[in-house]
């Protein structure tokens, strides 16, 4: 040890001595001009670098292209560079003015960033990018600047094999769901997002918006798109091990742009988009609806009293209110406009580099009264305190104000219904505005306390609620990072980063009395709510990075060691009140009364609050070895302690090993260099683990249960979890990265296997793992058990077919497949969640050995043409008879006798009874192939590109159709029901069953609604024009470009629902792949203008 120390001191001493000896100054002057037209180049950067290529100092040319510079050391090299020209190294000559001619270049900015292969500061492993032997893909956003995408999730969709991004819905700010390499757990499959090295904290578990998961992901990375330099996706455990437990679902590394040395640069970009919805499912109009209702009632009851609402009775006082032809959906739909302004200032000198950006996005939704306004600003500041110390400050502020439609809570106390859902169901014979008995408008919305369909709460007037109801939120995010990098020596550096982040959200809702049909004293009248939530994170990271200085360059050994602490805290309060004295008093604290809705669960009480704290402590060590630049061995070990676990299972240790072979550098392949460029094979193995989402799940808690007589009562409400442990995932990955023909053709392929053990069932708060109630409880918060396997492959390629000065033609293609299988289920796990098979219900079960997301149900075989046809048949198709030789009638569960016009279901076991035994496997929601392909063409200043995204080989349960084609209730139905069975003996292909009110079996969960989801979508198409360098100079601009692009313009699919892009939400493993989307993803056309000066 002492010897090493001495050696270090000696090396230092020698270095400083040499440095002192050669320290001689020299002044140089010169002029920088364009080689072609000899014009002066303004703002070119002249830098002096020492032997180790570290920038010592520098200057910039003035308006005439002249510069004067005092060199620190004659031995150093000088380099001049400026955007739009090739950089040039020149020899300094003392005392004499030199003229430097620069050659202009058409090199894309993106190519600059690709070729600058630096060790990324964001990584915890200290490996050069080209040496990585684990599975990771980087997407450079500079290429995609102008495509009209509004969030990073959009930018990534289809660009990376194995990354599945699904838009949640078409409402503004509704977010996307990101899945890397399939679902490996029950719920909570969220990749970790790391921005400039700082992991972004997850959503608080006590957060009371049940659907917030996917939204928060997109909001989290909703820093202005233009600020993102690149996104890197880490896929295998060997690469995510560096992020420990947080990275179990993959990691997205996001790097933001930073200031560069040079004169100040201004950039402005304006984007304007039109968002419009694809055509909605056509619904019945008022007349067709009343006819249908009369038919339903007649078929079920025979003779009946015609309700006034559908009787066309002119004497009925509400005749005018029930004789309309209202298209509810079209009244809610609008064309949305989005305006996006982005302004950036960047630049820097020898000591300081800065980048400041401001962005303002005003996004209009495609439903009336929905929009979102986002303002964000970012400051990145790098300050070189000395040669050894780099100090970095990053500041990010983001504010989003959102207006959405009020979401109505239904009278059953736990369901909600939004205005679009309502518009699909609402009787179209009802008018929007109220008429009096004589047919004159009253000026009020038509909102009866009860209407033909049901109560005014459950069947509200969607237009009134959309227009008068309020649902707004104001969210602010603030993040501050301080980073210090101290370079002890060439081979050892230390980094400390401290980051704080804060999120504050306030949301308000208000439902005025006149927006809904209830009486004045109902708890729904003038109901106001206010939710305040805030969360904060404090994180420190201390990391040594070493690079062992070997004498022989054959060996290369690098690595890091360090430790990380993070703590997270979130709290919220909710206040709701009712019956405020006026619709103008919308603050729940003024005038209202606190009334809990009937059947309110504890999480829906009118006053509630919560607080959550989490802490994590980690230590990481990585060691990488490279021999002869060809053989790579990379290892990492990380230990995480998480406060969500008890002391017995608190520490999780995750490790990763990867091997790489850059075979293209082997001597025996040296004669192949004309067609083979840098290529490598990789293999990796690693483990990762997942902690529970709820930080306090392990505690047994005692809560007040009111009082008995006058004594306080307290009862235990949760079981203590002593067995709670890390869910563990082991992944193996083999891959190859191949470059051919001087990097013109790139091919990458991977196969992987992910194996999850001790699956954490389940991760969402309200569900829990069911246990027998004889225990005194009905659930455990979590239960570790069962095993799951994901295997798959990924392939991607990019081919630059033509690459000349004027022409560029590039195609890319990727494909991937993931197969998910439940290998083992916990003992006493109920594989059938729901065995009720009533209308609209699919029996839900999980089968070991089969994929999550398989569908079960009946086989639909059309419609019985007449009553006589509804008889039981044996396996060979012969009619079965009873002892008295009467045909055995076909029944539903032995109770309902099928009649003519009813749906035929296949009687699998031929017992004459349609029941649970006849429910069979009818489909699978897991795609066999997903991926994308694209083309980009550039000719001189013009460029044109398009990309397609595809998902093939999967099924969808079209719940929208199920709800709109059943004809068993009072909800409005789609136009498809116009071709329905009406008279005995009617036989037509594609005929739907008869309309029959409350028919128990006409709309069972069957393959009638299971459809192939396969689609190919034109994801983006873009045409751009870049102003020529000459013209720019004349206009004194750095650059200018104009782009027109469109997103999701065309979709090729046979799916009849709104949108085949259906999310895989694993939080409920029983109901994956159901499409009940009501707002399809809108199509967007964007015009963009960008100037730099």
């Amino acid at each position: 040890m002492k010897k090493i120390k001495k050696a270090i001191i000696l090396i230092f001493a020698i270095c400083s001595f040499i440095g002192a000896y050669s320290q001689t100054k020299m002044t140089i002057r010169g002029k920088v001009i364009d080689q072609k037209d000899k014009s002066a180049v303004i703002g070119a950067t002249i830098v002096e670098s020492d032997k180790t290529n570290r920038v010592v100092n520098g200057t910039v040319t003035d308006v005439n292209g002249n510069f004067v510079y005092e060199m620190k050391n004659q031995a150093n090299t000088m380099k001049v560079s400026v955007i739009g020209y090739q950089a040039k190294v020149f020899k300094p000559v003392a005392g004499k003015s030199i003229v430097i001619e620069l050659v202009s270049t058409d090199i894309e900015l993106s190519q600059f960033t690709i070729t600058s292969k630096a060790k990324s500061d964001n990584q915890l492993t200290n490996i050069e990018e080209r040496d990585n032997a684990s599975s990771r893909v980087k997407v450079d956003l500079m290429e995609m600047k102008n495509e009209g995408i509004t969030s990073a999730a959009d930018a990534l969709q289809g660009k990376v094999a194995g990354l599945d991004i699904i838009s949640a819905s078409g409402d503004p700010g509704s977010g996307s769901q990101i899945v890397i390499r399939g679902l490996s757990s029950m719920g909570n499959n969220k990749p970790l997002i790391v921005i400039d090295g700082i992991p972004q904290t997850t959503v608080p578990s006590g957060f009371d918006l049940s659907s917030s998961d996917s939204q928060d992901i997109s909001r989290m990375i909703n820093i202005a798109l233009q600020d993102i330099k690149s996104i890197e996706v880490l896929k295998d455990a060997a690469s995510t091990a560096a992020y420990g437990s947080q990275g179990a679902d993959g990691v997205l590394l996001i790097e933001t742009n930073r200031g560069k040395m040079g004169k100040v640069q201004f950039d402005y970009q304006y984007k304007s988009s039109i968002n419009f919805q694809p055509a909605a499912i056509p619904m019945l109009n008022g007349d067709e609806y009343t006819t249908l209702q009369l038919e339903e009632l007649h078929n079920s009851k025979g003779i009946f009293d015609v309700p006034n609402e559908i009787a066309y009775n002119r004497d009925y006082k509400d005749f005018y209110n029930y004789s309309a032809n209202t298209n509810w959906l079209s009244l809610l739909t609008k064309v949305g406009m989005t305006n996006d302004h982005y302004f950036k200032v960047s630049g820097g000198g020898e000591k300081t580099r800065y980048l400041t950006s401001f962005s303002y996005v005003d996004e209009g939704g495609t439903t009336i009264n929905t929009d979102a306004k986002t303002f964000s600003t970012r400051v990145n500041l790098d300050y070189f305190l000395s040669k050894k110390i780099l100090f970095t400050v990053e500041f990010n502020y983001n504010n989003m104000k959102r207006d959405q439609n009020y979401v109505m809570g239904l009278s059953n106390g736990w369901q909600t219904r939004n205005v679009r859902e309502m518009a699909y169901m609402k009787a179209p014979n009802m008018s929007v505005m109220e008429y009096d008995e004589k047919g004159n408008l009253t000026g009020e919305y038509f909102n009866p306390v009860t209407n033909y369909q049901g109560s005014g709460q459950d069947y509200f007037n969607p237009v009134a609620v959309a227009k008068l109801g309020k649902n707004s939120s104001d969210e602010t995010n603030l993040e501050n990072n301080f980073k210090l990098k101290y370079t002890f020596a060439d081979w050892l550096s230390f980094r400390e980063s401290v980051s704080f982040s804060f999120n504050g959200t306030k949301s308000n809702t208000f439902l005025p009395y006149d927006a809904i049909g209830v009486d004045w004293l109902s708890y729904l009248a003038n109901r106001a709510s206010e939710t305040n939530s805030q969360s904060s994170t404090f994180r420190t990271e201390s990391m040594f990075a070493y690079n062992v200085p070997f004498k022989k360059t054959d060996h290369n050994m690098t690595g890091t060691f360090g430790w990380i602490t993070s703590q997270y805290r979130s709290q919220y309060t909710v206040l709701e009140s009712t019956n405020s004295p006026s619709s103008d008093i919308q603050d729940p604290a003024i005038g209202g009364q606190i009334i809990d809705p009937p059947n309110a669960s504890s999480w829906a009480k009118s006053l509630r609050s919560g607080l959550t704290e989490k802490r994590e402590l980690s230590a990481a060590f990585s060691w990488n070895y490279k021999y002869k630049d060809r053989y790579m061995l990379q290892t990492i070990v990380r230990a995480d302690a998480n406060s969500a676990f008890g002391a017995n299972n608190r520490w999780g240790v995750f490790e990763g090993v990867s091997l790489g072979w850059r075979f293209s550098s082997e001597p025996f392949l040296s004669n192949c260099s004309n067609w083979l460029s840098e290529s490598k094979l990789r293999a990796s193995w690693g483990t990762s683990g997942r902690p529970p989402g709820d930080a306090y799940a392990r505690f047994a808690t005692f809560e007040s249960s009111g009082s008995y007589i006058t004594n306080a009562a307290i009862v235990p409400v949760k079981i203590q979890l002593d067995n709670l442990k890390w869910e563990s995932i082991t992944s193996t990955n083999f891959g190859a990265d191949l470059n051919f023909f001087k990097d013109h053709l790139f091919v990458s392929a991977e196969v992987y296997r992910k194996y999850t053990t001790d699956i954490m069932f389940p991760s969402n708060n309200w569900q829990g793992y069911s246990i027998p109630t004889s225990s005194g409880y009905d659930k455990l918060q979590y239960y570790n058990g069962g095993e799951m396997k994901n295997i798959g492959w990924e392939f991607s390629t990019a081919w630059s077919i033509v690459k000349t000065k004027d022409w560029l033609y590039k195609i890319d293609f990727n494909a991937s497949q993931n197969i998910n299988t439940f290998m083992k289920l916990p003992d006493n796990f109920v594989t059938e969640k729901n065995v009720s098979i009533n209308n609209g219900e699919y029996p839900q079960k999980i089968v070991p050995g089969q994929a999550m997301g398989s569908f079960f149900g009946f086989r639909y075989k059309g419609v019985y043409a007449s009553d006589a046809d509804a008889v039981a048949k044996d396996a060979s198709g012969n009619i079965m008879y009873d002892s008295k030789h009467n045909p055995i009638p076909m029944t539903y569960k032995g109770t309902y006798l099928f009649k003519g016009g009813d749906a035929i279901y296949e009687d699998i076991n031929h017992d004459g009874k349609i029941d649970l035994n006849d429910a069979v496997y009818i489909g699978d929601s897991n795609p066999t192939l997903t991926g994308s392909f694209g083309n980009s063409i550039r000719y001189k200043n013009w460029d044109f590109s398009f990309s397609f995204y595809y998902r093939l080989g999967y099924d969808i349960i079209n719940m929208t159709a199920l709800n709109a084609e059943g004809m068993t209730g009072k909800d409005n139905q789609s136009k498809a029901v116009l071709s329905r069975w009406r008279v005995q003996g009617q036989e037509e292909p594609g005929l739907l069953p008869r309309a029959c009110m409350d028919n128990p079996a006409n709309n069972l969960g069957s393959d009638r609604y299971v459809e192939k989801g396969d689609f190919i979508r034109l994801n983006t198409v873009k045409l751009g024009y870049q102003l020529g360098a000459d013209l720019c100079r004349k206009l004194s601009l750095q650059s200018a470009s104009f782009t027109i692009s469109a997103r999701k313009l065309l979709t090729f699919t046979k799916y009849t629902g709104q949108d085949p892009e259906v999310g895989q939400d694993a939080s409920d493993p029983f109901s994956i792949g159901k499409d009940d989307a009501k707002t399809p993803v809108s199509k967007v056309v964007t015009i963009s203008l960008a100037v730099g000066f």
Partner: protein
Amino acid sequence: MNINMKKIFQIRFILLFFTLFLQFSCSNYMELLPNSGLVREAFWKTKSDVDAVVMGAYKTFASNNGNLFTYGEARGDMVTYSIYGQTSDQYKVMQSNINSDNGLCDWSSFYKVINYCNEVIKNAPGVQKVDNTFTDFQLQSYLAEAYFLRSLSYFYLVRTFKDVPLVLTPSETDASDFYIPKTDGDQILTQMLKDLNDNRNYAADTYSMTIAEDKGRATKTSYDALIADICLWMFDYNGCVEACDRIMANPKYVLLSGTVWFELFYPGNSLEGIFEFQFSDLNNQKNSTYGMTNRDANQYLPSQRAIDLFAKKSSVEVTRGEDASIAKLSEDNYLIWKYVGSQPDSKTVRSSMEQHSCNWIVYRLADVYLMKAEALSQLNRFSEAADLLNKIRTRANMTPLSIANSPDAYEDAILDERALELAFEGKRWFDLLRMGRRNNFSRKAKLLDVLVANVASTQKRILSARLTNPLGWYLPIAKSEIEHNKNLVQNPYYIF
């Protein structure tokens, strides 16, 4: 150069210090307790913790009083369904059309109470070690309350489901065994009787604070009443008589006079009351019986038989008849009045401040009289039995009965008297069941008549055949319970 090195070492020391600091503070740093609710680590420290969980058990039991009503009345002959508020689950139980997915097969409320009691029985003794003010006497008294409530829970469970899992330890951690098979009902009750007899002497004689505590918490007398009831159910008539004698020897409990009979229910906690689950709107302790029987949203109405028994047009019952047990709204339109009225006059309903304040009477002295009478008659001590029975009758201004000296005749007379005296108090079905089970189901047919009386005419024949199987008199185990516990076996009556 030297300066440089010093700096390096300084930074190193700082870092070293920082690392050490983190490691030493580690164990505390990671131990985060939730802010809402008490965690087990901080619980079971003082006697007030014990008190609060005992109260939690009472409270939870009391909150289940709607089901106690249904289990005790729905399949009997004193109530009928109301088209306004009745749930389909209730309706199906009344029709004997019961499947294991019927919500009323959910026994979780009972097991919650059992788990709370188990918590107390296991953890209260430990509290004494940390709380010096917690005396032996207090501890034993709390334990006695826990044993009482646990026994009462199992008694309800066995009478409703027959064989159920016997859980005697609390589910404290996920290491507990949650998958417990059924134990024979009689075996459970034998165990409960043992618990009760072992702990009776530790139970309080009285809770001096208020009358509500005296009636609402387990006393020695409550113990005796429960022992008597279980003995009677198990046909241990001597045991029953013995327990009843202890109660009747206690001068604190007297039969109310007939003129104030309705005070049993309003205001309640009468001198006759032995154990009543307490409710008070004021303290947000609301019973379900008001909602189940009031005029607007009722679930149960008096059956035709109840109307025949009570209504002025058909009955001479005055004290307990129309206006007291039932109220007449209009011709042929009657209401259960015990939980709704504040006067025996069919008109004056409870004030809105105490609508849901009516207690759920588990035991009162009249019940004890009739239990003893039943036991005595089965022991062929007919005159003593007649004496007790007629005391109840004379109190209600009814003429004394003279009954033939046969156990069956007495059984019928007592059953009828219980129907009158204890109507709608959650007793009827269990009384009928006791009769049906007695002497190896010798009078099964009478029970079957009652069972099929409620049922739609098309079903009567098939059900009277099927229900000769006594297992059909009990509810099935809930489907989800069977699914989640593979060690449970469904009541064979419900497996087809």
